């Protein structure tokens, strides 16, 4: 502030450099966020000119038993936990393998990464085709029962399908983060442990895994923020079905807002999602900070 006060030209320059970004960010985040808070206190179908102010009624209704929202929250929690654990375990295992010196390493890394560059909506459609048409042919030619199950038609299987497809699409991303992490583990440290007689399993748990901690923190954080907002892949893979059992919170908000035209009510749910994400992120960052101090 003091420095700026000294010269007008400096102030002007500061403004010219920072105002464009400030205006852009306020326009798409802060202003809409204020509007979101306002809409959440109204009843509005999007057609009438003026939303009707109803105070906290939307929130009362959501918390006093909105079955859709409860189911969607439960779905999202289950999905997030399983996704975070499975995608990270798989990526670490794959990274350990691909960190070894092999002739095909370059190909293998590229192969596992490719789905990550594809749009999730399209990935959902491709797998819908595989589950519906591809499995039929595969079942006929192999005779395996696994291909004859109704992977998108039965609630529990549809949940697993969504989980598998999400992991398929993104495991390559976590894989490359873990490979980068493994390459920073000093080779002589592993050698020293080998000389001391530590087996491969022991070496992994006492040396590699602790040194991978920063990569794990990043990956868990990314997996969490992505899984809590899961939407695209469900939209194209199951469309929320069968029987509305695979709606995530983000999809439920989309349904209420844009399909049922409950603008105020959907926005109230959106605000609850924001608070949930904020709380979870703050908790995660606190744990992250604490671990950094220890290291």
């Amino acid at each position, binding site marked *: 502030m003091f420095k700026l006060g000294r010269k007008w030209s400096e102030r002007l320059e500061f403004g010219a*450099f920072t105002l464009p970004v400030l205006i852009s960010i306020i326009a798409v985040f802060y202003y*809409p966020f204020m509007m979101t808070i306002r*809409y959440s206190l109204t009843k509005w179908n999007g057609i009438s000119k003026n939303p009707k102010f109803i105070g906290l009624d939307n929130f009362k209704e959501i918390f006093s038993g909105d079955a859709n929202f409860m189911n969607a929250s439960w779905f999202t929690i289950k999905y997030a936990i399983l996704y975070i654990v499975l995608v990270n375990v798989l990526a670490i295992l794959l990274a350990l393998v691909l960190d070894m010196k092999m002739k095909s390493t370059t190909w293998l890394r590229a192969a596992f990464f490719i789905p990550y560059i594809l749009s999730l909506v399209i990935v959902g459609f491709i797998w819908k085709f595989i589950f519906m048409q591809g499995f039929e042919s595969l079942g006929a030619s192999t005779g395996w029962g696994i291909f004859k199950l109704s992977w998108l038609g039965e609630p529990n299987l549809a949940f697993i399908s969504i989980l598998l497809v999400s992991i398929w699409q993104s495991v390559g991303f976590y894989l490359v983060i873990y490979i980068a992490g493994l390459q920073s583990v000093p080779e002589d440290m592993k050698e020293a442990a080998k000389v001391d007689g530590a087996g491969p399993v022991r070496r992994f748990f006492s040396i590699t895994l602790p040194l991978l901690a920063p990569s794990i923190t990043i990956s868990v954080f*990314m997996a969490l923020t992505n899984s809590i907002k899961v*939407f695209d892949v469900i939209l194209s893979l199951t469309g929320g079905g069968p029987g509305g059992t695979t709606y995530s919170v983000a999809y439920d908000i989309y349904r209420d807002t844009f399909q049922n035209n409950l603008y105020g009510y959907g926005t109230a749910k959106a605000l609850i999602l924001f608070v949930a994400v904020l709380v979870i992120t703050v908790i995660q960052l606190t744990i992250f900070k604490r671990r950094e101090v220890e290291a």
Partner: protein
Amino acid sequence: MKSKKAGRIVFEVFMVILSLLFLYPLFLTIINSLKSFSEVMTDVIALPKSLAFENYSYVWKYINYPRLFLNNTVITVLGLAGIILISSIAAYKLARTKTKLSNLIYFLCIMPMLIPFQSIMLSVLQMAKSFHLSDSTWGLGILYWGFGAPLAMFIYHGFVKGIPNEIDESATIDGASGFRLFFRVIFPLLKSVTTTIIIIDVMWIWNDFLLPLLMVNGSPTTKTLTLAAYTFVGQYTSDWQYAMTAMVMAVLPSIIVFMFLQKHIVKGVVAGAVKG
């Protein structure tokens, strides 16, 4: 020693087979995009008897592929250019100015990384409508400036702090100041992080779905590739050969670019994740 080596080779062969199985769904998508309707229906895993390229010419015309490609390019380039420009100059200024106001602005700029898009999507749509930014590829490109800025600011800010102040001072002595100092001296030094930001943002904007769905889905002249594929599949739920063709046409540009820039892309994605 010999058996150990043999074991390694067996293991490597196993991994290669695993990777091929991993990509098998993409392979099935490609071969079925080249089949006739009855062939898709009788056997999905068989290779096409003859290559039905007419699927491609049909879908190409039906969804107006060149137009979609142009739309995607306009949105991505406009969005990206804006993000790079406004974020780099602001991050530079904020990193160099050590005042309370500067800290506050920086905080306000990176805070939105915590706001999930679904929480504000309805209001963003209303805002875009009132500023006439909806239903236009240019408008959508401009909206990405704000959505992409927080992460870009965060990455640039961290990097600028590592550039010694003496560089600015000596440039000032040489008579450069303001925008000229930034673009002549500082911006070239940011090349590595700029590449990182370009890679993550191109992947994001090119493939983005929900924001384009709300903003430009109304007219076939403003749609993006992903949106067109989405609508197309909705209309052709049983004509899988066309649906698969549309899928291949939507993802092919990304795969081709990836094949050429594979190393840079992987590096950029890792750098972006580690810094973000």
